[in-house]
């Protein structure tokens, strides 16, 4: 039997951007596998399975093998048009990842309540909602999230550096609840 039936058997539903993802994942696996020697240690004593290199080797070996088969599957499957449009869509999500990181960077500076209200309202506007009622709802929900998590559930979040400049009475309330 030639290799053709094997390739046919590997074929599957292939969505837009599948091959790009498969190749990038394989390259990433190969990169990690190539660094196995420099990033892990082989101890002169001890059994094979107790070596610190054993599990990274097993997982990266498996990852590379499966990634290779995944690429072959992608190559042998019928293609859907619009590969780069799909990749562009993935890249567009980086904008929201940026919003998330900016939010995390803001909290220790301006505090949980102000940054939550600021980020949520700006994001709602960014999404194209100009409706005043929805913005008010966002403010209400943002306030509720802060009170529930910081005030009631007492999750550990830092107080904003600007809270230090608040008047004495309010400062304490902000430090504890917002």
């Amino acid at each position, binding site marked *: 039997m030639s290799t053709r*039936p094997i390739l046919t058997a590997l074929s599957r539903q292939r969505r837009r951007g599948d091959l790009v993802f498969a190749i990038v994942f394989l390259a990433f696996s190969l990169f990690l596998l190539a660094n196995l020697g420099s990033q892990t240690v082989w101890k002169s004593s001890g059994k094979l399975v107790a070596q610190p290199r054993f599990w*990274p080797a097993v997982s990266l070996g498996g990852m590379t093998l499966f990634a290779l088969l995944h690429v072959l599957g992608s190559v042998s499957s019928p293609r859907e048009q619009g590969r780069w449009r799909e990749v562009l869509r993935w890249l567009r999500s980086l904008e929201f990842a940026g919003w998330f990181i900016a939010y995390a960077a803001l909290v220790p500076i301006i505090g949980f309540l102000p940054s939550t209200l600021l980020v949520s309202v700006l994001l709602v506007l960014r999404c194209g909602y100009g409706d005043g009622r929805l913005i008010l709802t966002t403010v209400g929900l943002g306030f509720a999230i802060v009170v529930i998590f910081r005030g009631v559930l007492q999750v*550990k979040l830092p107080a904003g550096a600007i809270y230090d400049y608040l008047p004495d009475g309010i400062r304490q309330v902000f430090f504890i609840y917002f």
Partner: protein
Amino acid sequence: METLLAGAELLMRWDVVLALFIGSVGGVVIGAIPGVGPAVAIAILLPATFSLEPIVGLTMLLGIYGSSMYGGALPAILINTPGTAVNALTTYDGYPMTRRGEARRALALAYTASFWGGIFGILCLIFLSPVLAIIAPMFGSREIFLAALLGIVLVILAHRGQVFAAGMLAMLGIFLQTIGLDAVTYTKRFTFEMTWLASGINLIVVVLGLFALSQAFLLLLEPDDRPRLAKTGSGPLLAGFREVAKHKRVATVSSGFGVLMGMIPGVGEFTAQFISYTYARRTSKTPDDFGKGSPEGLIASEAANNAVPAAAMIPLLALGIPGEALTAMMLSVFYVHNVIPGPQLFQNQLDFVYALYLALIVLNVIVLGFLMVSTGWLTRIIRIPTRFLGVLILILSFVGVYSLRNSLTDCMIAAGFGVFGLILKRLHLPIVPIILGMVLGGIMEVKLRSAMARVKTPWDMIDRPIAFLLFLALVAVIALHLRSAWREMRAQHTRDQTDA
């Protein structure tokens, strides 16, 4: 009996009751909103429960886990969009019933079949407990290693048509848990001399990124979707009990499949639903009605998926092995509170185990009661604009990630996994293997190391009855998969030759 009463006493505390109520009602609401789902909600709430007592935190998360599928049936029936992924089959018969003006009947059937499945699953769990208490101590390091390995293999093979993708993602999960300082040899692994990698990649950060943030990004990127709702009509929702009782064989067998599949790591609700649905159609007097609004199809789907949560607790509580992503998240709550699931739990904290069982029963009653009075209100929740939902999930995800260690680096890692999760979701590739790879990979590494201290030859690994049975199961699962793949390949080859 004394232990059962101690468990009941534990459950009667006001904070536990409140947590159970919030979890149950919250789970239904979350399940009813397409695009959120229990994984997102549990991932977000996970760090918040760390400051609570184990029983309080766990009952809240258990409430969400056990009740979300009830809520998920609502949009599946009314707008043909499953609220949670496991309600997919409910759309087959639920939506056609809505289209012919029987939405109320379909909802009544879904709620009561779910209740039937839920209670059946818990009863199985309770009756199996004494057996578990006997069997669980027979699991030593090598048995737990083999069970975890079987879990990984099943997770990979359960993704039919995506086995290679599931394999590479499970291996990625195993690799991720090896990053950082090796706890035994104190050597660095894949840190690339970066200090932030020395402490490893936190499972909860990955979970939040892959489940919650990816969903937020996905919703924010796509245009708003506000589906049109069909009228639900009027009539008592409890009438569903009468109709489910008429099809009690289908409801019970489907619940049984749910329990069986729930117990096997990596299989879960999807397989249970498909097997139950197929069984119901094959044994029905009206098989042609399936997919066109058959009550039996709806009952099979809902009873099966609601029997799974209780059953999925069996390997988790008895062996400390999670069967799917949600129980993997639960496991981290156990660990944070120094409650180590496994054989010792049944010997030392049986009252805690019974309290969890009773909590599962109570949550099913709360949910059913809540649905009876709130269905009209819940139908409005379905229509929340999806991009607005994305904003809320992003904000809540931040609380989850940042409250762990107040670390900006964690937020960056979570954002990275969020983008990765978005790509996987767009490509319809599975996320669960990564999480199970991380959890089961850690278990395998520890258990294999400790097992090898007493193992001289490879045969010693399987010289005990349970270890041998697990090894046989492993070989059988792989052999059966290879056989079916070979048959498919031959059939395809024959088809190609005939076409040529």
